[in-house]
């Protein structure tokens, strides 16, 4: 398909474009951090239901591991998986390799160091710093920084920013060199690269010295545009048909890029903050959900007539389940960004459920779908067990849905108790059943990922046997579902 659209060129052969070992490395790193994050999440959830076996051990401090949970999922799992998917899709979209292979590998290593150091810094940093008065008197903390989603210790921030900047440059080069019109996926990628660098700089550095904020915008401005861009790339390839409406794609993109950054302040809806940005955020949020509807409509119209693919084509199933969940999070966002409803559920588990639905149910599932599609291609071997793939999907989709629904209900319960001046203990004791359900959902979610890891290892072993028989012939640049 790509060859007929753009015409083949000498260098535009897959093996010259895509750095396959690097894609594999990024995916494996992503899955490693996914496991770490899920274990950390389990620890926190066990603490809340009073079953924590590691109670009282400093380096197993739930407070610290909670921050490891969010940061390893965002920068360990999602960021690594996105970067791997970009290393596959950008060269194939632009028919040019990234700027520099060596640079790519350096960025990979730097990124693992950043995330690893973040996790270690958060867990061990405070303990280390308390060991001597000299360490304590240093003007910065070894441990977490006080910015939500930006807890990366301040001493690691510069390295992280450098890594992101280098990655952006590496990817922008092939995009800059492309002639002619850019496909919609590339629009999203360009926006994401610019925003991510700027967001990280402002989110990590500004609150420390000037204004408060959260790095919540990292979700809207880093992950969302990359995720949508990847969907625009993979879905047409897998379905074997183009996106339904180019006009809607234009509207969707330009609406999103204008409104997403403005909506960010909705995280500060209630509080002693200036009214004008807050009101603007509310309007922007409602408006952005209308724009998102156009994007969702576009994708559902694209699969119209190919519904059978949802059964036969696993990656498509991951993508569309994720899109349904995305629609749900948009509904959530519309109501939670309003003063009446928002004030009631603020500080409750509603937001936690929303975060899990978005982070895993949407971005996670899209990325797992991409991995489900790409690993067989990268290893020239079909999945060893289709059954395990199915278990992976169903355990993941159902667990995250149950978790999100459970936490949304918990949030409604908590908000109501608080707003009706019920005693604090009532809101906590009453949350226990919800937290127990969430713990069980988390276990099933973990089980689903373990199915995937097991299947991955078996498939890899099978591929090693095959590779020794030299199967590079027969691989064309074209991709089919």
């Amino acid at each position: 398909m790509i060859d007929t659209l753009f015409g083949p060129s000498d260098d535009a052969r897959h093996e010259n474009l895509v750095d396959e070992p690097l894609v594999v490395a990024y995916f494996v790193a992503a899955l490693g951090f996914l496991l770490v994050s899920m274990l950390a999440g389990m620890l926190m959830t066990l603490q809340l239901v009073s079953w924590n076996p590691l109670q009282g051990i400093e380096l197993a401090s739930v407070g610290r591991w909670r921050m490891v949970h969010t940061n390893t999922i965002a920068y360990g799992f999602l960021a690594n998986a996105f970067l791997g998917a970009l290393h596959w899709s950008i060269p194939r979209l632009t028919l040019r390799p990234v700027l520099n292979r060596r640079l790519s590998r350096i960025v990979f290593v730097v990124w693992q160091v950043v995330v690893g150091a973040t996790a270690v810094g958060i867990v061990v940093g405070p303990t280390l710093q308390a060991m001597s008065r000299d360490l304590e008197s240093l003007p910065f903390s070894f441990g977490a920084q006080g910015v939500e989603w930006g807890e990366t210790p301040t001493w690691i921030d510069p390295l992280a920013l450098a890594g992101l900047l280098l990655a952006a440059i590496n990817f922008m080069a092939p995009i800059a060199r492309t002639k002619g019109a850019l496909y919609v996926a590339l629009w999203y990628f360009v926006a994401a690269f610019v925003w991510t660098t700027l967001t990280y700089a402002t989110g990590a550095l500004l609150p420390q010295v000037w204004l408060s904020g959260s790095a919540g915008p990292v979700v809207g401005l880093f992950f969302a545009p990359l995720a949508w861009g990847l969907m625009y790339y993979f879905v047409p390839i897998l379905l074997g048909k183009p996106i339904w409406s180019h006009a809607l794609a234009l509207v969707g993109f330009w609406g999103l890029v204008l409104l997403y950054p403005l909506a960010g302040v909705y995280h500060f809806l209630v509080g002693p903050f200036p009214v004008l940005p807050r009101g603007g955020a509310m309007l922007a949020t409602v408006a952005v959900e209308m724009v998102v509807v156009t994007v969702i409509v576009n994708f559902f119209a694209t699969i119209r007539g190919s519904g059978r693919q949802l059964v036969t084509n696993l990656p498509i199933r991951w993508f569309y389940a994720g899109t349904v969940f995305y629609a749900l999070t948009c509904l959530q966002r519309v109501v939670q960004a309003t003063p009446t409803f928002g004030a009631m559920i603020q500080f409750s588990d509603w937001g936690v459920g929303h975060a899990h639905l978005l982070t895993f149910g949407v971005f996670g599932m899209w990325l797992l779908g991409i991995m489900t599609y790409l690993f067989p291609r990268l290893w020239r071997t079909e999945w060893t067990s289709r059954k395990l793939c199915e278990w992976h999907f169903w355990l993941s989709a159902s667990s995250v849905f149950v978790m999100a629904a459970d936490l949304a209900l918990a949030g409604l319960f908590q908000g109501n108790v608080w707003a009706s001046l019920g005693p604090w203990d009532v809101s906590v004791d009453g949350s226990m059943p919800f937290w127990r359900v969430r713990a069980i959902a988390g276990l099933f979610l973990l089980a689903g990922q373990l199915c995937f890891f097991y299947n991955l290892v078996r498939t890899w072993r099978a591929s090693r046997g095959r590779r020794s028989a030299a199967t590079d012939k027969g691989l064309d640049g074209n991709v089919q579902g």
Partner: protein
Amino acid sequence: MFKDKSGLLLVAGLGFFVLAVLSSVLLGALMVRARPEATVEQIAEQNSNLMYQFEDLAYRYPDQFARYFGTPSTETLAEALRLGRRVYVSEGCWHCHSQLVRPVARDEERWGPASTAGEYQNELQRPAMFGTRRIGPDLSREGGRHGNDWHAVHFFRPTLVSTGSPMPNYPWLFDGAPDRPNRRGLALITYVQWLGSWLESYPYYEAHEPIRRPEQE
């Protein structure tokens, strides 16, 4: 412009981001630019409610206090506040406790006067710990509600004073027992006692009678 690279880069990427920063961030910052920002030393010098609590700590835990801070003074109080705040951030306390009393959802009846912008204009609020989740109660008016000994026992093992609390134990803030808080423990207690101690209405107690549950009779 809509599909070409410069349009994407400059308008969508840079332009809209800058627009958002200007309208959301800069505008707000300009509106508070006249407010002075207090340093920790200024807080230590001017807040007598807090100094009282700090001296009380020295009185209750004389050996521990002498060992870790010496004597209560504005210098050691500033030290304790800085360290206490750092412990609060690095232990992730702000992920279960908020520091923002809102004028909605009856927050004020539960915790006291709604938080105002001026309360966050100091070095100990860089960044401000508004919080996004309340598993535990809001802490912005926590100062003075409980004695230092309550806090010591509570940090050591919350369930000792708060039945059924899901808060984890923090024995590493102590030297083996709840009546022996170490440097971090003393600092954190000081920090928590600071919260809300700057108010005219300090200390503020809950205005409602909690409903007694049958087990408590």
